[in-house]
């Protein structure tokens, strides 16, 4: 007896995804153009800066890529959690506290060797992020607390604590701004595209995306994690320690959030500024949704986000667009694109639970 395994149409087809995403993007851009036509006195100039502003000179272009770096890390972190069907909504607090931890280590070791001290700073950031997110995973494992809620709440509290440190004990008395002192020169990443702020960590970010991809699809942890994410009952039946995979993805997810914080401090800001990382965590979720949780797709998704942001600020500087209008334009694009990605994500989850 022979059985023929027939290939049916695969709903996860990547080309279908890219096509539908492009259509949404087109609609979003159309709405933006219409808005600008109404709101700007010189719409042609505004539209020009909005769309090609990021490519006009080295400074804009480099800064755009630079702001994609933390988004790649936060996007990867969220994608890992999503792949395992765990949810980390605490990105904001994890990035922010990771940044503070890295700053604190650098400031505590002003004389140390750049590589050793820098590594310690990065490890501290990863550790803080991992612990914060890992706690939510642990609560879920022990008591079934919804990690989506607990990570969000923990993050909310952590933001306030970090604010306290930046404006209180660690505040730089030499200036009137709400910042810590600057970290020593040896800890700052090498800039590779002056005059922009782009630094070498962009290579590190791309490499990390490839590593995460390898981890997810070629290692046994990745396999077990994905299986748990797709079907916990099946995984338990197959002998996988499913409870462990409530915690591990959260720990990994938090690590990447912390890393994003460290990279922002050591590459771009060279200090912690009150509220400087706000949005990175949330945008990481949007990046992961657009990338359909594929680690490699996180790279273009993060660059796309950075591009919109850079375009909006270029239009703001060079034309009559105010900050508020730029923000509205940005949010329309985010809203449409994440709504589209979210819709597919929900449909996908629903199909799974049926």
């Amino acid at each position, binding site marked *: 007896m022979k059985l*023929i395994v027939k290939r049916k149409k695969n709903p996860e087809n990547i080309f279908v995804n890219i096509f539908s995403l492009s259509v949404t993007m087109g609609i979003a851009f159309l709405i933006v153009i219409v808005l600008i036509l109404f709101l700007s006195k010189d719409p042609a100039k505004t539209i020009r800066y909005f769309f090609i502003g990021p490519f006009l000179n080295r400074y804009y272009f480099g800064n755009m890529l630079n702001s994609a770096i933390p988004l790649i890390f936060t996007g990867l972190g969220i994608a890992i959690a999503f792949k395992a069907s765990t949810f980390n909504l605490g990105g904001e607090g994890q990035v922010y506290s990771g940044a503070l931890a890295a700053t604190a280590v650098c400031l505590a070791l002003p004389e140390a060797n750049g590589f050793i001290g820098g590594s310690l700073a990065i490890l501290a950031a990863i550790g803080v992020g991992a612990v914060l997110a890992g706690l939510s995973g642990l609560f879920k494992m022990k008591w079934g607390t919804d990690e989506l809620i607990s990570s969000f709440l923990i993050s909310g509290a952590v933001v306030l604590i970090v604010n306290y440190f930046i404006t209180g004990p660690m505040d730089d008395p030499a200036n009137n701004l709400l910042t810590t002192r600057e970290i020593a020169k040896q800890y700052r990443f090498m800039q590779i595209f002056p005059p922009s702020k782009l630094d070498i960590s962009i290579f590190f970010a791309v490499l990390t995306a490839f590593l995460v991809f390898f981890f997810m699809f070629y290692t046994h942890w990745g396999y077990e994690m994905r299986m748990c994410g797709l079907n916990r009952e*099946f995984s*338990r039946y197959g*002998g996988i320690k499913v409870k462990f995979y409530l915690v591990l993805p959260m720990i990994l997810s938090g690590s990447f959030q912390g890393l994003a914080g460290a990279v922002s401090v050591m590459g771009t800001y060279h200090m912690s500024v009150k509220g400087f990382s706000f949005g990175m965590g949330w945008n990481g979720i949007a990046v992961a949704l657009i990338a359909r949780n594929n680690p490699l797709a996180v790279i273009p998704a993060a660059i796309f986000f950075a591009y919109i942001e850079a375009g909006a600020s270029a239009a703001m500087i060079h034309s009559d667009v105010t900050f508020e209008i730029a923000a509205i334009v940005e949010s329309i694009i985010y809203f449409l694109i994440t709504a589209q990605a979210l819709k597919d994500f929900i449909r996908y989850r629903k199909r799974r639970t049926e």
Partner: protein
Amino acid sequence: MEGISKYFPENRVQANRNVNLVVKKNEIHAIVGENGAGKSTLMKILYGLERPDKGRIVLNGKQVSIHSPMDANRLGIGMVHQHFRLIREFTVAENVVLGIEPKKNGLFFNRDKSVRDVRSVIEKYGFNINSESRVADLTVGQMQQVEIVKMLYRKADLLILDEPTSVLTEQEINRLFDNIRELKNQGKTFIIITHKLDEVKEISDRVTVMRRGEVVAVKETENVDQKELAKLMVGKSVLFKLKKDPVSPGAVVLELKNVSLKLKRQERPLLDRIDLKVRAGEIVGVAGVGGNGLGELEDVVTGLFKVSEGEIFYKGENITGLPASKFREKELGYVPADRLNRGSCLDSTVRENMIITRHHDFLKAGVFNQKKISVFVNNLFKSYSITGDTSVPIGTLSGGNIQKVILARELATNAELIIFSEPTWGLDVASGEFVYENILKLRKNGIAVLLISSNLDEIMNLADRIVVMYRGRITGRFTNDKSISKALIGEYMMGVRNDFN
């Protein structure tokens, strides 16, 4: 109901074939049949949850079309599902009025009126619940009363009860039957789905017997005895052309000692002091009708559920209470009844599904050796005559093919014990025979097989020893030889006989 037919193309099951069901006003009508006989589908059609392919429904002389439970409610038809549909945090009254709440000023929920109305329904029909208690605080029997009250509040005259006694204790059953009789006196009509024949005798006026999607008999309850019903339900033996070599069983591989399983807030244990031994090279068949503990037995012997009492031994080692992952390390094979959710991960590829139980074998420093996986998967494809692409999601395969993949995977372990649960449920004949051949091959190779199945033909054809379960208890143990008949086992399955009372 006249000439009702229903075919499920997804699993290729003809659930109902030209079924006629006549229920007279003010009678208690029982529908009996084995699992998969089509009772539930028929009732779902009557209640608007499924649409028939053919046939019509006539109510009080008028043809009606029922598209949804709302339509059914409007026509005075109510259904109490086997699994209650209640909101635990709400009170009895809130649950009962949900969806058709009395309003205050056309806008606000009128709590007082709903409590009053529900209380009057409860009193009118002599139930024993407080309309203001929280459902979560009730016993299972009381929850069922809430479900019935819910239907009565919706002015149902015809009530469908789907296996109403399956979760109840003896006292709760008596109480339920009292309620039913009282309701009958007040003019209500009942359809009761069940496979407990003593209950049929006790409560019903007439009984319709279904088998494999068809009605095989309609009887006045007083003119028929339980043995005859049991015989009608199981039908004649279907003989397979299976060649069974004589095999002498070896050492005990799996042993259950006094195993019980009890859930919180549920009086009746799901498994009640089960003793069971499976030896190398023999097939032990556990027979029973669904809802009598077969599924629970499957869950505890595979470590997915913890037993409340008793011990489980595998090759002499006490494995009671070990986590599921440790069970797998003991290398036992397990082909589950729920093959679409437990047995496979529909969204991942055939390849990934095939390695779940032994993916550790393909690792080199934590990384998968893809070549080794390909060799393994291709070998299994060859030996189980499966052809095609291993990189498509397994959910795109047919049910028979999915079962083949599961079978291939589980038999590929070096297990000394393989547990099968409902291995041919929903499969076409050819795939079913393929499964049987493989089970017999295992037996020949000296492997212990535990076969849990509600398909009595399957058990009679394969098993060396047969254990029958009824209401979580073992009611009979037999050696499968010429001295036993299908009708006899059927009587044990339906609770007509019990050797261990």
